[in-house]
Every structure is written in structure tokens, then in C-alpha cells.
């Protein structure tokens, strides 16, 4: 249903947010 789709996309967006934040941190550490 639409609600399920929205929930699935929200979970995916949260996961990607988490990944990109830790990637950014890691890249900055390595750069320094």
C-alpha cells in the first residue's frame, strides 16, 4: 500500500543518511 511504500522509502532514506554521514567523517579523517 502507499503507506508501506512511504515507510520503506523512509527507512531507505534514513539508512543512506547514516551511511553518507559516516562516509563524510571517514573521508575527512583520511584527508587530514
Amino acid at each position: 500500500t502507499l503507506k508501506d511504500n512511504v515507510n520503506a522509502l523512509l527507512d531507505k532514506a534514513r539508512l543512506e543518511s547514516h551511511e553518507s554521514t559516516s562516509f563524510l567523517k571517514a573521508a575527512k579523517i583520511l584527508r587530514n
Partner: protein
Amino acid sequence: SDLEQLCTYVNEKIENIKKILLIRNLGQDPALKTTLSKIGDEIITINELLNKLELEIQYQEQTNISLKELCESLEEEFKDVEHLK
């Protein structure tokens, strides 16, 4: 083609009217009324979820900007090292 677009446009309108015809007398039946109010509640819930989703996407867009800035500065630094070499 234009004609196909015109057909789609007219068909969508007809579909909308059919839907409204289906729900035309919905409000009279008490049982269906509760269904309607449940759907109304679901819409509120989904809108709240979409608000959260929009916030996540805005956060992603911000992170994108930071990643791009980092990428640009790394390119500069790579050129410096290359120049050094």
C-alpha cells in the same frame, strides 16, 4: 503524439468523474462513513510520514553539498601534490 496526449487528458478526466460517481453516495451509509473517517486518519498518518521523508531528503541534499565541497578541496590538494611531484 499530441492526439495520444489529448486522449490521455480526456480519459483522466473521465476516470476522475467515474471515481466521484462511485463515492457519490458514500456519506449516506453509516458503515461506509466509518471507513471514510479511517481513510482520513490514514491520510494524516501518511502525510506525517511524508513530512519526515522530506526532512531526510533535505538532510541528504545538505550532505551532498558537503561531499561536493570535500571533493573539490581534494581535487585542489591532488593538484598540489602533483605539482610537488
